[in-house]
């Protein structure tokens, strides 16, 4: 292990990013005698694992499973019949067969509905979790539970835990980035660090939700000086750093000032690097087409008033998928992108068609792109929402259903073309291979090389973890 000073001297930029270690050392020295390490440098997990990074495609609003990835012929057959007792709060509780056709795809013969013609071509890459369930059929709680494990009190988000566990591979970028997260359902808590040190919190790019600016603009706060050129700012920063060097020399040793010096340098480098990554103008037409950004695909704009997120075009979901790939490729550890608008209480047929068409080509493009860059093998792609929807109709839509739904994963360390778990004949409730959100978290951590019971952080006198006191790894899906 180098000393701080050696690291400072050995890094070419003068003020090394690794001087961050200084802070860690100071904090560690305060808290315990823990060995001083840079808290953000890449770390080894508990055991070797295939997945090294995560792209989480978050479907805000809870997509219907019985119309997408959970084929229910009996639901179709019994369409219009009364739902089993006490099911379905609204609409008289009549079963509503899916208006969409399902077919088998790939060598694995995986059932996927006609809503995903492009994604279906990648069936053999997908690992379907058809037995998902969560605690409450309420958006805010379930959304928080999906991100933080529990909703009862503030906890670090999933991405923050992963960053805490693995560190990051690019010193010029945040290690956990979330693109256009929603502002409701707990908002920033869903990418927050809670009691983990703030350096693990997600960096938000763009703002989510419907409306102008929603789902589209990719902005990081304070990333650009409104007046100065980078050259002018470099002049200014050099002066700041000379003041700080003087202050440092005067006091002798001060890890906090060393930390300050290096954090300014990282901030400055982020200003240079992040906009470059967010600018996709140098991507080829073929790539843009593959993600559905150009050349059709991607659905109409949705949401009240006809604005809001869509699949295609700059600022659409395809663009977000492409950004996710670029960020992951640049060494970001955890990227989350959000597609809002899945709360289909009404007009399921049209609205779900539109939602799915907005993500179908982009996700297919993402999987293909990762594959062709040989990154799918160690990148875990996760798709899913906070719960599923009722097999019984609610007018022409479906209500919330927490007892059974679908998420899927692809890439890093999971079995492709594999289906785990199932719901009952209608899709109300998971009955086999039941996978609670805690189990899903435990499994993802396992895929990244962690024993979820040992990835802990001491807070309020307790060793806290993402899975709280629960969670079992779904070993069956590990490749």
């Amino acid at each position: 292990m180098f000393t701080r000073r050696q690291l400072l001297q050995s890094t070419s930029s003068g003020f090394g990013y690794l001087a961050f270690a200084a802070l860690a050392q100071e904090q560690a020295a305060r808290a315990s005698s823990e060995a001083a390490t840079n808290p953000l440098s890449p770390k080894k997990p508990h055991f070797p694992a295939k997945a090294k990074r995560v792209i989480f495609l978050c479907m805000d609003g809870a997509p219907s499973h019985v119309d997408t990835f959970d084929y229910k012929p009996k639901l179709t057959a019994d369409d219009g019949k009364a739902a089993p007792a006490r099911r379905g709060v609204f609409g008289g509780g009549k079963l509503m067969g899916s208006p969409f056709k399902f077919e088998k795809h790939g060598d694995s013969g995986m059932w996927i509905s006609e809503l995903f013609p492009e994604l279906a071509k990648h069936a053999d890459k997908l690992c379907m979790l058809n037995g998902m369930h969560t605690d409450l059929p309420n958006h805010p709680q379930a959304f928080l539970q999906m991100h933080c494990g529990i909703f009862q009190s503030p906890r670090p988000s999933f991405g923050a835990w992963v960053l805490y566990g693995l560190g990051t591979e690019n010193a010029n970028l945040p290690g956990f980035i979330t693109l256009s997260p929603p502002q409701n359902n707990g908002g920033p808590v869903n990418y927050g660090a809670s009691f983990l040190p703030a350096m693990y919190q997600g960096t938000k790019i763009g703002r989510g939700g419907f409306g102008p600016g929603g789902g589209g603009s990719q902005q990081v706060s304070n990333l650009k000086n409104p007046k100065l050129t980078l050259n002018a700012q470099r002049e200014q920063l050099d002066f700041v750093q000379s003041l700080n060097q003087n202050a440092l020399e005067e006091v002798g040793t001060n890890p906090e000032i060393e930390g300050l010096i290096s954090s300014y340098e990282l901030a400055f480098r982020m200003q240079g690097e992040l906009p470059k990554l967010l600018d996709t103008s140098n991507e080829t037409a073929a790539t843009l087409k593959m993600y559905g950004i150009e050349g059709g695909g991607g659905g109409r704009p949705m949401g009240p008033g006809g604005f809001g997120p869509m699949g295609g075009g700059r600022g659409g979901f395809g663009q977000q998928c492409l950004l996710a790939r670029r960020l992951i490729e640049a060494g970001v550890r955890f990227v989350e992108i959000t597609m809002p608008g899945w709360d289909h209480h009404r007009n399921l047929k049209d609205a779900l068609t539109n939602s799915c068409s907005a993500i179908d080509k982009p996700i297919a493009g993402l999987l293909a792109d990762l594959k062709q860059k040989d990154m799918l093998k160690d990148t875990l792609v996760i798709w899913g929402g906070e719960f599923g929807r009722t097999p019984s109709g609610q007018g022409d839509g479906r209500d919330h259903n927490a007892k059974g739904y679908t998420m899927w994963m692809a890439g890093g360390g999971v079995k492709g073309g594999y289906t785990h778990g199932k719901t009952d004949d209608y899709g109300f409730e998971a009955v086999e291979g039941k996978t609670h959100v805690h189990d899903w978290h435990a499994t993802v951590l396992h895929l990244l090389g962690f024993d979820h019971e040992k990835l802990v952080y001491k807070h309020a006198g307790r060793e806290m973890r993402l899975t709280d006191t629960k969670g079992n790894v779904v070993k069956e899906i590990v490749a």
Partner: protein
Amino acid sequence: MSRFALASIALALGWNSPALAQPTKGTGFADKPTQDQLAFFEKKIRPVLVESCYNCHSAQAEKVKGELLLDTREGIRKGGATGPSIIPGNVERSPLIKGLRHKDPDTAMPPKAKLPDAVIADFEAWVKMGAPDPRDGKAVASNKYVVDVEKGRSFWAFVAPKKSPAPEVKNAAWATSDIDRHLLADLEKKGIKPVGDADKRTLLRRVYLDLTGLPPTSEEMEAFVADAAPNAFEKAVDKLLASPRFGERWGRHWLDIARYAESTGKTANFNYPHAWRYRDYVIAAFNADKPYDQFIKEQLAGDLMPSADPKTKAERIVATGFLAIGPKALNENSSLQFELDIVDEQIDVTTQAFLGITAACARCHDHKFDPIPTKDYYALAGIFRSTETCYGTVRFVQSQRPSPLIALPAESAPSAIAKKLTAEERTATEKEIADLKKKIAESTDRLANIFPAAQLSMAQSKLDSYEADGTPKLQAMGARDKPERGGGFTPKGPFGPGGFGPKGGFGMSRSIDDSPIYTRGEPNQPTAEKVARGTLQVMSKTPLKIKTGSGRLELAQWIASKDNPLTARVMANRVWMHLFGRGIVSTAENFGAAGQPPSNPELLDHLAISFMEDWSVKKLVKRIVMSHAYQLDSKFDKAAFEVDPDNALIWRMSPRRLDAESLRDSMLAVSGQLDATPPVGSVVARTGEGPVGRPRLGGDGISQAINDPKNTHRSVYMPIVRDNLPEALALFDAPDPSLITADRPTTTVPSQGLFILNNPFVIRSSEAVADKLLKSTTTETERIRAAYLTFYGRAPGEKELATAEKFLKGFQAQLAKDRVPATRQERETWAAFCQALFASAEFQYRK
């Protein structure tokens, strides 16, 4: 509700009938097993138990799971936390068998892998034969934690503070106070020599920032440096203690503890338009040096204290806002769960804020570290369940738990709303209400009614916030006792014109009453017997005497008593921490067994005992800042560092970064923008009830106001909306207001750098100082000197002057290269120079 809870309910409903709960002789267990049965056990059962179960369910287990021990006959028959594991002869009803069958993943055992069917069949056969079992002996978990309250009483924190004479020190001349003697004795024992004294400039800037959160002006600095009187420093301290800026800073420390915020946070975030009254109460209390014991009593039970005049009465009602401003999940479906969650939050904040312990851990199980049995938790819960929490909010989508507010006496307090409601406005709102009601009545589609119903609630709430004559109502958040008996609350519902939400009220307490214990914290698992309302046994041998009312007043008196071993220590420790950067108990938030013991117990007790003489926070602050130790330099010393790297013994003053509020306020002050007049109310108050983000209800006013770069009030008055903290605060480690925070962390992350380099607020402030400098001085050297004095409280050295001049020249040249018009270059250059000083360590740290 957790999965575990669901499993527990199943257990409770299915198997926990009294007859079966306590298996005794003649219950069907094979008490006299045959040789064949024993052989079967040895061959088929015991090896499996040893191999697959003992790891978690035996005396040898590192951690016994579910309180279930399977390594003795007694243990396997008695069962665990959820009741017996075997119903002899009844395979289907035996939880053990159900677990082995893996039908339900929540109770599946062993959890990771199902045993072979043949093995399960063996267990079924064994249960059928009455579970013959030769294993004698008591079921004892080697590490089972049992709360021993009596033993707990000897833990240092639960023993009353002891007065001890100040120790003898070798360097008697150095020590100017008992505080110094206590510190120096320990330093001398370790062979550490304290560093020299801070120079006058450093000392004044330090004490200004520590006491008021603002740096001295250059005039104040020069006057102090010129004042050669021996009591010059004391005069400065007295002036700062008397300044209204003192309460704004020290009040903010308390607001961290009180998890102050102006919205509910959690799942659906709704405004608390009246929370600001509590903020102002706290600031005023610190400014008035309200005795700390009274401060405690007012916050817990101000409504129950006799008040001579309407103003005092109003003030004390507002104080109980302490109990009402916590985070709440307004979309909770179960009334009882909601009530128990509020009560839990109140127990949490009460025990942490005043006692520095976490009693809320005992909601579901006896406290793992501290001698707090679950029974004590529910003794406290009874007090808070007998209390009505009034916090307002409005019925809305995802918000189905509004409560009343408390009316304040007329003219007893200011109003956040300056304007009366005009007759026209009233008519318009009434019409809106009528129209919405009609629209809702005409529609049979409940879904389509959701939004109009929400609009209706908002309009109604607006109307309800005014008196009949249009004067804004004076209302506050707070607490009040429930009625002694009966209770006027009738459950409504299904709620609202839209017909949504839960039917209300089942199981909620409606009047003053003791609470049962809720096993594992589950609302559907109350014990038959109730626990007498009271307090923590470990800290009091005599039960609380509650004559009438909820018991809040008695609880408050018990906490604010000189006999309470923790109250004074916890507060004295926090005051120390805010001045030295580190508590004598370094875990300021936890004085329990999971915390750290005091680095200097005698000093802590000395401070606590002297604090209790008059409970004056200002006098305590003064005693500490007048010590020699506080006036030490912050210079690094290698020899001392090697012995005491944390500076726990105080061989120097630890330098530290300004906290978020001080940093922002200092920028405002230095740039001359600071508006020192406290604003009345807050943006949230003026916005009124409703969800925090409301793009469909007329604008997103709050989110813009939160980060308004033109806001020039002190940071303590910024809107504090849960999960939407102002960036200037959140980036610099202001705590999440959903958490109770005694000690803020200090992080250094690049997003702070980006804020300082690029944020409009910082740029505005830099331009403001630049304009000031350009106006007041003429030469470049003068300007640099003036800037150094303003930012740092000192003049620049020769080398620094030269560096600054070089920068100014180079930067202006760069601007020319960047084609900035010549007319703007000078101002831009000076603005960039000032921004650089804001960015510098010397500005951002206090030495």
